[in-house]
């Protein structure tokens, strides 16, 4: 069987230029992969350096998350081939993100809503300890 996999006749034949769609799936050219890495590293540097500026209470968090999401998008689109892959896989991935958002938002909202009860209790206990 290894002979067969060896027979490197068709690879070259099928993929003279690596940027086409022969074979089972798309092949990503090296230059693209490398430049994506470059971008990612750049963004990493950026997100680190940004933290030294004060952009308001939530500002920094928002910026950090935006940058992270851009990086994630790059990885998903190019490294993970979603750009050329079946759309259904993209739908699946976005679904998962959607459900995570749903989970986070509802839970956090509710927790925020009743935080006052937690704080009130703590305050009362502090009172109690004074007596």
């Amino acid at each position, binding site marked *: 069987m290894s002979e067969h996999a060896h027979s490197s006749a068709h690879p070259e034949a099928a993929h003279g230029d690596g940027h086409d769609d022969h074979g089972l799936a798309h092949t990503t050219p090296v230059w693209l992969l490398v430049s994506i890495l470059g971008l990612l590293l750049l963004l990493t540097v950026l997100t680190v350096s940004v933290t030294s500026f004060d952009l308001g209470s939530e500002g920094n968090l928002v910026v950090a998350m935006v940058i992270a999401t851009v990086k994630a998008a790059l990885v998903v689109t190019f490294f993970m081939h979603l750009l050329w892959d079946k759309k259904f896989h993209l739908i699946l991935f976005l679904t998962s993100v959607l459900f995570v958002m749903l989970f986070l938002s*509802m839970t956090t909202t*509710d*927790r925020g*809503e009743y935080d006052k009860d937690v704080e009130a209790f703590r305050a009362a206990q502090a009172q109690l300890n004074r007596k």
Partner: protein
Amino acid sequence: MASPSTTADVVATPSSSDSDNYLTHDKGIASWLLTLDHKRIGVMYLASVLTAFALGGTFALILRTELLTPGKTIIEHDTYNQMFTMHGAIMVFLVIIPGIPAALGNIALPLQLGAKDVAFPKLNLASYYLWVLGAVCMLTSLVTSAADTGWTFYAPYSTTTQTNVIPAAMGAFILGFSSIFTGLNFIVTIHKLRPPGMGWFRMPLFTWALYSTALIQVLATPVIGITLLMMMVERTLHIGIFDPTLGGDPVLFQHFFWFYSHPAVYIMVVPGFGVIGDIIPVFSRKRIFGYKFIAVSSLAIAFLGFLVWGHHMFVAGQSLLAGSIFSAITFLIAIPTAIKVFNWITTMYKGRIHLDTPMLYALAFLWVFTIGGLTGVFLAVMSVDVHLHDTYFVVAHFHYVMMGGAITALLGGIHYWWPKAFGRMYNEKLGRIGAVTVFVGLNVTFFPQFILGSRGMPRRYYNYLPEFQPLHQLSTFGAYMLGVGFLMTAVYLIQSLRKKPDAPANPWGSRTLEWTISSPPPYYNFHTPPTVTRGPYDDYEDLVYDPKIKGYVEKKSGRAASA
């Protein structure tokens, strides 16, 4: 293109015991334990799940016996608490969730798709052994000092109680992955292994239901995994996520838990919808009514099921805002569910109804599930839920849905596919008696609990006020009846395995692909990969009953006529 009539020729050849089938293809225990054949894995699942069901059922009977009198009847406080915990955990994680998808689904799904196997046979076997491993963990907890947290593992009780919670939680954790892998396998199988000609709206409703279920399994189950993991770590390392004394929040645990466990309710019952959707048209000899609505409503339920988890927490300290949102969406689920019931009923209209055992279970399902569904509405109404929450009303409601929905459908499915899976016909008379006994027992057991609940009897109670005793005793009597029904069923089913194969390829006159091959199916399912040219419930009149083989065969002229 392989014309349907050629497929029909395959049908026409009645199964003969000597022909090579998946049961006789290989011999020896190893050939079963290491099999990659979806049918054999399905059979192993079926056996394991039913064994677990027997165990959980025994617990139920002991619990009901204990409740014959207030105070001690046969067991102590703690034993009772541990037993209802294990009853819940076993029934939910070991029986109902894998029940229909993993057992019946594994047997029937690839056949309904005309496929040679599921997409990932090794993964399929792996998920079975994960089930076994999970079961072992549960039993470890059971035999050491069984968890007494209730199957919900609510913190901080679960993080502080003295009993052996970790193995039980670990069991549930592992079973979660077993369920994920089954779901994943089915989704890929349905996407990639459908035969030519079978578009999405030519899939049997059982397949549709399993598809919706699988989506929930894949999306929701990981969350229970991480939740139980956090609970276990909280218990051992006190990380302070859920434990209030360390700055944690018990209500947060409930959010985490129900984000999975509410969708899990649909993991349990949607496959049941599928079974009923397959049985009713076949035994009414009539095309299913509103096929697309039934099919799509499964997806709708699956999706909506994710948006309502908070309705388990109306009085748990959840905020009014969250509560109202969850309540509002909860009501929406009533709609697709109602649509299904109406369509099934309408399917029977002007049909020609055969009341064989599977159909009896389907009718039982319609009755019981209607009650279960309607009482669900009570609990979605917030002000009423304040009174009913955590009372026997809830217990009755979810038993009507779980027992009445999931288990009745499971039994219906077992009786429907039994001839296909094992090539044997069970004793029809006993089958009908069994179905009726189970149906009556179910109502006698759980209906009184609605009254108990609304009269204020809280759940998970070992003692109770004397005035509740009559209803408890009635309920217990019903439970014994159920026990008898199940025992009887087990006996005649096992009995049927011991006679020589006598099941025709198509005893009920079904149209779905699994009935076009011999019973039991050949090792490789389909000699000629089928090509589909009609819907799963079309042209029943093209089948004729052949008394000699006690089964249906394709009517040659019929094709010509309609062609």
